[in-house]
């Protein structure tokens, strides 16, 4: 049985005071196995974030269903944790307090909180920064706190919404390598949303290419590049072939988005 089954999902937004409806996702289907690293790539506004929010249980589906381990998603839960593009760290909390936020909300004891936070911060390479405040950290470091926070609740599924989108290009590349290193230890099921084609290929076992809004699956690509992957894999012919293919898939969709259709 697939770990995560997304079948024919449709998500519709309704604007608060008017009666406007916006179809964000339609007829979206994909099956994901346990431990698979899935990247989702598509043009702006295609509903990538909406998909993640639906899997996280924060948005209801108008049609279709999302099953995790065979059971339908009905709300947020401890089996899934999200990492946000804008980091979403609470500026008034220290790094460790931010890390243990998810655990705190579940009512864990204070002693456990500190120990767990320390462990995961060490895992993401932020040992020694426990008592710092977010504003003292660089973008890359802040996102690592976000990742530590998500890992701390020990989820089965990691949902990452363009986590490196707010970082500069160089930091982004380093973080990709770091992320894979951290992931190798545990091999959780990951849904990773991104704009970047290279990033999508580099990280993934499976790539879901999306169309422009309303978002649907354009193609699912299985990536058979060997792991562990160094950065040099981006220069191989296989990598380049996939990049070209995905770009061709996206070309029309992106242009449509760019001119604001």
């Amino acid at each position: 049985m697939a770990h995560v089954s997304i079948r024919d999902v449709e998500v519709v937004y309704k604007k608060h005071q008017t009666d406007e409806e916006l179809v964000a996702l339609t007829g979206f289907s994909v099956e994901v196995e346990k431990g698979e690293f899935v990247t989702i790539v598509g043009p702006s506004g295609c509903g990538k974030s909406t998909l993640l929010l639906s899997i996280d249980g924060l948005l209801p589906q108008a049609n279709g269903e999302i099953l995790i381990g065979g059971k339908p998603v009905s709300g947020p839960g401890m089996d899934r944790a999200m990492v946000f593009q804008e980091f979403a760290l609470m500026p008034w909390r220290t790094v460790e307090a931010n890390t243990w936020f998810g655990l705190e909300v579940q009512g864990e004891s204070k002693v456990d909180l500190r120990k767990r936070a320390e462990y995961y911060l060490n895992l993401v390479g932020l040992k020694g920064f426990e008592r710092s405040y977010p504003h003292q950290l660089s973008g890359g470091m802040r996102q690592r706190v976000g990742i530590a926070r998500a890992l701390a609740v020990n989820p089965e599924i990691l949902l990452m919404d363009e986590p490196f989108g707010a970082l500069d290009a160089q930091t982004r590349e380093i973080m990709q390598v770091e992320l894979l290193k951290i992931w190798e230890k545990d091999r959780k099921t990951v849904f990773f949303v991104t704009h970047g084609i290279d990033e999508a290929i580099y990280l993934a076992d499976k790539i879901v290419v999306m169309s422009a809004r309303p978002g649907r699956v354009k193609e699912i690509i299985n990536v058979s590049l060997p792991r562990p992957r160094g950065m040099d894999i981006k220069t191989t012919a296989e990598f380049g072939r996939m990049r070209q293919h995905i770009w061709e898939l996206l070309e029309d969709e992106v242009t449509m988005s760019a001119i604001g259709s």
Partner: protein
Amino acid sequence: MKTAIFRSPPTQSRLQKLAGWASPRFIWGMGAVITFLATWETVSTLKIMDPRYISKPSQVVQTGFKMLSNSTFYHHLYISMLELIIGFSLAVLLGLLMGLLMGRSQIIRGLFDPLVMALYATPRVALMPLFVIWFGVGIWSKVFVVFVGAIFPILVNTMTGIRQVEPLLLRAGRSYGASEWQLFTKILLPGSLPAMITGLRLGWGRGIIGVIIGEIYVSSAGLGHLLNRAGNALRTDDMFFLVVVVAGIGYLATSGFSLMERKLTPWKEEKGA
């Protein structure tokens, strides 16, 4: 079919732009007010509370009509407005001038800033008896109260407005060869306009309060004076009506300033719209 409501914390009020009269904000607000008025009327009519001390809406309206048809009311209105406008105009003149100077020049700001801050912090109500000693019981003490009340928001807002104009814009202007005067009129002034208007709005508000309190304290004419007389004679209906009039003037002014803001600074985005 389940739809995802666009969930986020309520944003700042969108005011007149959207739906307007049919908006839930208006309906609920009006509903609350009407309920309140109805309760008030009932409580007073049924004598649950002494109607002498709380009056009731119907009576206030009646008294209102009576007052509005009496010419002396307009005389007092005129006096109050006169005091307000003179005081406010003086405050605008001096406030804008000083604000601009202090905003533009480090030296002037350094000289006057401590003084301004100290004066801003002084509660002018406490000084009212002093003002009366200086200017007498006539309109000039009230004019002065308005002046003192209005000048500080205007000055401070203008000064901050000038200072917060993005230095990047000035740099861009210079690189296009603009002279100092051009920089001032084409970049600094428009850039600080929103802040200035805010200052004017705040100043006007403080001015109104100043006039009324000043007239209540001591005067022989004006809306505040009428309020005081009504208060001493416990003519509660009069008191409520007059308070409504003052609130009404305040509302008109706020709308006026909002209108001015929209017309003069159409580029300003409404936060959270």
